[in-house]
């Protein structure tokens, strides 16, 4: 049923620099129709700009062929755990490209951008409703940026109360961004372990809590794909100790209409509009964060926040207790447009259905593969299922990395691997709601075929992928002798 395929990926085109021919040019501007002014003094002027020279057709062919070396959601199953690689509706891009939304300047008079401001205001309101947290900033540009916003709000909250707190609690199942964020906000990150059931170890949390603790950064569902049981008790304990609860909303695709994080005791939450709200991932961004907080924390949000006076919308800059801006202008507006379009397309019921089907798909994979791979925490999961290939590694010397690479030969993007760190030989599979049972069955069959190969011909799996124009790359040498730019002619390569 599942057999290796031709991935169809193209061999490498030469680099732009290798194709350059002096004298070529791919763009022509309208002629200069004003008089030329006196030039700047020579000592200010540049000589020589070593950029490649190509015609328009050459550039188009180069990037078309370059793109054909990528695998993407529009080509096939991309169950990269924690990244929510769902289908990206095309209407969202069409509307985001309308000149009235793409060709507007951030400093235009507010009277000339009422449509944009209304969109931002409504998105703030509705994200707040989903979060159960009424005040929202759309300024953060990605999830980690929302985390930084949240961690600095925690700092500002304590400082406003005259408290010096130095520690941020971070579960051992957290995304790497959480401890890095805590450090950027000036906190020492203290790890809290996961309990045997895959939820946070409540006793360990209570031991860790003290008057040095500023807050807890918790992901729920966590990176094991599990709903953190006892979340309301956890939040209460943190509050009791004078701390705040930050929820990393990277996994909100499982939660919309399921429970509002604010109702569960969360004080601050970030959304990833590029996960839950279908903004395309673009090869690594741009994303869009949005950070929602309780009414009590609203004064600390970065300025400006969009507000409404009657039927007029405006930016509110008067936020004297704010942590300050986290970026220039108002955030990744054009991605807020896409998120808004998605929200309007699905509506409240559709969003709830989205989360339900995402959880259905993940549990279907979990149940189907439970006999083939180890399930370190065998209980109902949420949006993703985390397996361990420890037994395969021990029995056949075929590691998770090998299985992941072999999936490529079956036309499937590998899941997230070796994460979370607390699961040995982890495979973190997030199917999302936009995949059919048929696709999931193909994935199940492919994994089973690979496990059979691991037993029969382990060297075949260890040498995968076999269907791509290049094989596994030597990352160790690349890091030891880094070549990060193409040398100029005459430079030593």
């Amino acid at each position, binding site marked *: 049923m599942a057999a290796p395929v031709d991935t169809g990926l193209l061999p490498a085109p030469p680099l732009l620099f290798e194709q350059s021919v002096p004298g070529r040019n*791919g763009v022509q501007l309208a002629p200069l129709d*004003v008089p030329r002014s006196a030039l700047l003094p020579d000592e*200010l002027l540049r000589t020589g700009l070593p950029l490649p020279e190509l015609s328009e057709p050459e550039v188009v062919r180069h990037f078309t062929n370059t793109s054909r070396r990528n695998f993407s959601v529009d080509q096939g199953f991309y169950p990269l755990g924690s990244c929510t690689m769902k289908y990206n509706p095309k209407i969202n891009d069409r509307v985001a490209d309308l000149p009235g939304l793409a060709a507007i300047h951030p400093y235009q008079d507010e009277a000339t951008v009422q449509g944009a401001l209304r969109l931002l205001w409504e998105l703030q309101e509705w994200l707040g409703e989903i979060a159960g947290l009424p005040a929202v900033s759309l300024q953060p540009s990605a999830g980690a940026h929302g985390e930084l916003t949240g961690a600095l709000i925690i700092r500002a909250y304590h400082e406003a109360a005259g408290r010096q707190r130095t520690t941020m609690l971070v579960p051992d199942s957290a995304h790497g961004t959480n401890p890095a964020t805590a450090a950027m906000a000036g906190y020492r990150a203290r790890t809290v372990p996961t309990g045997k059931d895959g939820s946070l170890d409540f006793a360990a949390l209570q031991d860790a809590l003290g008057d040095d603790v500023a807050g807890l950064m918790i992901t729920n569902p966590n990176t094991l794909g599990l709903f953190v049981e006892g979340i309301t008790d956890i939040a209460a304990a943190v509050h009791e100790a004078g701390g705040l609860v930050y929820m990393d909303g990277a996994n909100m695709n499982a939660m919309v209409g399921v429970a509002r994080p604010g109702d569960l005791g969360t004080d601050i939450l970030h959304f990833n509009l590029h996960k839950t709200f279908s903004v395309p991932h673009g*090869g690594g961004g741009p994303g869009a964060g949005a950070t929602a907080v309780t009414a009590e924390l609203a004064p600390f949000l970065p300025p400006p926040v969009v507000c409404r006076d009657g039927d007029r919308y405006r930016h509110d800059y008067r936020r004297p207790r704010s942590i300050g801006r*986290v970026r*220039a202008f*108002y955030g990744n507006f054009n991605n807020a447009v896409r998120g808004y379009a998605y929200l309007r*397309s699905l509506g409240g019921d559709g969003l709830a259905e989205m989360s339900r089907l995402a959880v259905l798909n993940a549990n279907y994979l979990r149940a189907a593969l439970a006999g083939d791979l180890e399930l370190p925490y065998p209980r109902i999961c949420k949006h993703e299922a985390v397996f361990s290939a420890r037994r395969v590694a021990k029995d056949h010397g075929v590691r998770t990395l090998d299985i992941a690479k072999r999936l490529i030969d079956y036309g499937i993007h*590998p899941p997230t691997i070796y994460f979370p760190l607390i699961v040995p030989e982890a495979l973190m599979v997030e199917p999302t709601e936009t995949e059919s049972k048929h696709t999931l069955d193909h994935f199940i069959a492919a994994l089973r075929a690979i496990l059979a190969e691991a037993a029969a011909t382990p060297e075949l799996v260890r040498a995968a992928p076999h269907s791509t124009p290049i094989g596994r790359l030597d990352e160790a040498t*690349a890091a030891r002798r880094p070549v990060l730019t193409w040398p100029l002619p005459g430079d030593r390569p």
Partner: protein
Amino acid sequence: MRYTPHTEAEIAAMLDAIGVYSIDELFADVPREHRFPRLDLPDGLSEQEVAALFRDLAARNGSMDAHSCFLGAGAYHHYTPALIPHLLFRSEFYTAYTPYQPEVSQGTLQTIFEFQTMIARLFGMEVANASMYDGSTALAEAALMAARLRRGRGTIAVSEAVHPEYREVLATYLSGIGLRIVTIPFDRTTGRTEPEAVAAAIDSETAAVLVQYPNFLGAIEPVAELSEAAHAGGALSVVSADPVAQAMLRPPGELGADIATAEGQPLGLPLFYGGPYVGLLATSMRNVRQMPGRLAGLAQDADGRRGFVLTLKPREQDIRREKATSNICTNEALIATAVTIYLAALGPAGLREVADQCYHRSHHLAARLAELPGIDRPFTAPFFREFVVRPPLPPAQLNRRLWEREGIIGGLDLGRFDLGLEGCWLLTATEMNSRAAIDRLVEAVAS
């Protein structure tokens, strides 16, 4: 729901395989009293209705398509060649994610490598990353990087002529770890940051001096002298540079800068009401291990075939957690791709032509305005594509009149910032401002 394929029969079969009777059962671990809240959200719409809704929203905004615009201040209206959106919307670029699996991500990785190369060359630096969120966060991350490179020094000195919103972001980013900020005043005659002011502002605690080139007021900073003054105090020189100006002006790498950052939006990106843009960050190889963000590097497979991988990953959050150089993960890869396409299509001659047009059109505008009575230019330093004037009317009032009578989006009222520049108006012209549009603005100001 049109984006999910599930039929009732399939759902039933899947529930059966899982061993539950309903989807609701999959949420039994969620506290009952908070489970399945009724959300006050609008009803879903068909694609046709969504399209109509957005036509209406977009029509409430005055766009560059229908109006001439003289705003800049960190976001510039340049021409976006048609090939850019065409290529960017290729699903292979658009709907992939971070290239964690290099065998199926060479498209993104090679593009990042080409981007790094072109950005490094543009700024006269050895290496560039891919990428930061925008120009403001790139500058803030550069300040944090400088503080790591000058460990033990706890102050960042920043010119007052750096974009005010960039300085706000800098203050936010530095507040967490307790780095101090010293502001270097700009010269009220030239509109530049003068080397003596840098010398006066820094001491043995200063890790870096931050300037903008050209600065927020449009003036071309004396970067070589400012870098020299920074270095004389043992501090690093960090320059937030306009990428289009690099085609005309000597790049920071030739002027003693240790780190160059930029807002990449002027390189062919639409204005997008402020984002998504892309932050550029370039430096020398000796500093690379303190760089934040993603880097792609050259690699080979077992058969000696060339490829690219994400490299020097121990700097990053997913490996180093709290010891990472930054928490950045999702960045602006697609916008970096757009910049790569733009630079490839324009080449050195095309980008120089854009820079020349900015220079000549903005100077023509300045010269025409100088002919009017009661209008003066308060600063003497040379400029590139934007400049400050003091019009006879308050800028806010003037802008309102221009919009209401002529449909022109005027300049920026500098009185909105805390710079002591009430009554000053920042004007910009690029290749998008025709002579006729410039004449129309000048006539409207005159009337």
